[in-house]
């Protein structure tokens, strides 16, 4: 099966090279390789996660090179270390764009690092390929967002939780920074739309792992479900405390937007068993493409136990989206590539994804998974096809009334 897919890609690549040939000749800085950047933290607190993302980008590039590269040229990844520090991200982005003259960069994981590099991408008209699900409220023509936005996570989670699962009193909990706060905004809006209420909206300091007081509050609040936007290693302590204070997932299920395979593995599967997460991709998606992806990734990082998760999958498939757009444009020129990014469609490990031409976000299929005793999820709800990304859904954006369009952000609508 893998071989078949490879062959198919090979033919596709070969034919697009033929089509794109005139473009190559016209390039002023023609060399024998195409350089792209990978800007992730290789050191510091976030390196655990971000190194894997860099490996996923490298895996995709390896596969592309094995199939003949892009525009007939091999692709070379220039790796830079953001060191888990937004200021370093900014410096390294400047280095990649100004000194190395690389204008296609895969990178950043946190919103803080993305916001830190955004000005330089916009000023120098470079393109950032950003794979992490984030809070929305951004509309840059210089970023391709391949992770989910709130309406692709909460948009299916909340109606399901209230209407199918029958939970009406929701405790919203998160880490104290912009992502959970924006997610809480969307959650409240959706709860009101579906006739349920929220009983509390509480935050714990980022990176803090003392949950005793908060979990007691949850226990005493009279809620019948928790929506968790907790991030980082706080997640692990949260689920453990939850179980250890004697709350069961049947009484008060935790429904999370961030908790993924990597956190489940770290906390021990028994603590999360029975809880839910809403993201577009789960390792348990049972397709040949996904199995091949998991196997290849494990080989790449030389670790048979490594898990795959949403942003990892997006980091991988966005490289193919980039390749398709470059080949469709026939050049690396950013304005031409951007033109072709909208509408690109790719059969990613988790299913087909399409880039939205209006806001350069990915249309994805939201899924709700219930965590099992083995640390994997059972997908219990999958939306019917891809859902259009709406980065401003917290502020009233709908598919018929877009705030973020190909003309940029329509500020008067906010």
């Amino acid at each position, binding site marked *: 099966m893998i071989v078949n897919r490879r062959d198919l890609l090979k033919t596709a690549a070969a034919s697009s090279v033929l089509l794109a040939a005139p473009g190559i000749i016209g390039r002023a800085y023609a060399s024998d390789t195409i350089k792209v950047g990978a800007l992730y933290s290789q050191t510091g607190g976030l390196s655990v996660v971000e190194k894997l993302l860099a490996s996923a980008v490298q895996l995709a590039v390896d596969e592309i090179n094995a199939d003949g590269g892009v525009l007939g040229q091999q692709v070379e990844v220039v790796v830079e270390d953001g060191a888990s520090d937004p200021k370093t991200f900014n410096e390294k982005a400047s280095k990649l764009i100004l000194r190395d003259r690389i204008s296609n960069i895969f990178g950043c994981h946190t919103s803080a690092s993305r916001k830190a590099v955004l000005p330089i991408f916009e000023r120098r008209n470079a393109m950032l390929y950003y794979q992490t699900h984030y809070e929305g409220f951004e509309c840059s023509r210089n970023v391709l967002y391949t992770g989910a936005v709130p309406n692709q996570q909460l948009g299916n989670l909340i109606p399901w939780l209230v209407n199918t699962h029958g939970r009406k009193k929701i405790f919203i909990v998160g880490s104290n920074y912009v992502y959970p706060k924006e997610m809480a905004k969307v959650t409240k809006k959706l709860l009101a739309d579906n006739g349920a209420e929220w009983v509390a909206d509480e935050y714990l300091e980022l990176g803090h792992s*003392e949950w005793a007081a908060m979990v007691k509050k949850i226990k005493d609040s009279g809620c019948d479900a928790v929506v968790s936007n907790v991030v980082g290693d706080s997640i692990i302590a949260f689920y453990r405390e939850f179980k250890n204070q*004697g709350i069961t997932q049947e009484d008060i299920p935790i429904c999370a937007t961030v908790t993924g395979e990597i956190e489940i593995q770290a906390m021990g599967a028994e603590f999360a068993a029975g809880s839910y997460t809403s993201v577009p991709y789960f390792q348990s998606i049972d397709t040949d493409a996904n199995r091949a992806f998991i196997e290849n990734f494990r080989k790449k990082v030389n*670790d048979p136990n490594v898990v795959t998760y949403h942003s990892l999958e997006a980091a991988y498939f966005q490289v193919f989206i980039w390749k398709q757009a470059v080949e469709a444009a026939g050049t690396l020129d950013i304005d031409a590539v951007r033109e072709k990014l909208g509408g690109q469609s790719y059969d990613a490990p988790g299913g087909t994804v399409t880039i939205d031409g209006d806001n350069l976000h990915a249309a994805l299929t939201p899924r709700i998974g219930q965590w099992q005793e083995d640390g994997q999820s059972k997908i219990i709800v999958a939306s019917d096809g891809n859902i259009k990304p709406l980065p401003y859904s917290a502020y009233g954006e709908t598919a018929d009334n877009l705030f973020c369009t190909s003309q940029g952000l329509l500020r008067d609508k906010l």
Partner: protein
Amino acid sequence: MVEVLFIGLSLSSILLLIALGLAITYGAMGVINMAHGDMVMIGAYVTVMSKIWLDLSFFAAIPIAFIVTALIGLVIERLVVRRLYNRLLDTLLATWGISILLQQSIRLEFGLSFFGINIEGLGPGLQNVSVPSVLQGTVHVAGTDLNAYRVFIIAVTAVLTLVTWAILYRTSFGVQVRAIIRNPQMAAACGIDVKRVNALTFAFGSGLAGVAGVMMSGFKTVFPDMGSTLVVDGFLVVVTGGVGSIYGTILASGLLGEINALVALFSNDIIARAVVFAVVIAVIVLRPKGLFSFKGR
């Protein structure tokens, strides 16, 4: 209300667990030991490794962690700290360096990852310690359900505190340690082998941190940087309690833990953290030597 006090007690016990070792190395020996948090980290890794490689239970990891970290502490004292007594700021820098070394050696698997050799349980990733089923869930005490693991931590902390107190106040070794706290030169003049006692004291303090690491591994993630945030809490307690006073350390951890729990429950965790820092600042301003401090002559 029992539950609120219990949560406070639990927070206090965790603070005390980390601060106990510091109270000895910082309080008694005047070494600002920035590597203390990394001893906690190593204790946690010992738990991870003894499960993976020796298939030992969580409880068996406690003495092993104590021995491993005590030995590392002894080596650190012999190689570095010994040369820096009475140079407070230098100990800070040197032990900070040791802290980075320890973190990186875990992250780089003692450098073996450069050669493509990977040791399971080490490396930059998050590690998982499974808590024995006895300690999961709740226990029924005085009409309320209490988190079993937290009860266990409180018990371990109580035992360690008693042991430390007994060693300091009921053994001849403890007399020597206390003599050195008061006046190292005079102690040496009285025939106490200051170097040997200091080395053992430092090793004991490090061993306590190792046991704290085993406890922390049960509800925090285990990763190379985990110690850096813990050491800050440890210093807060020691400074508030008063340098060199074991009673001060116990009282300060109880005070800060309960304040944290009460404020967290009646308002929220973020304000609780701010209030704790405010209290610490107030104590330092009003009583620069801490709540309890030894009055020298």
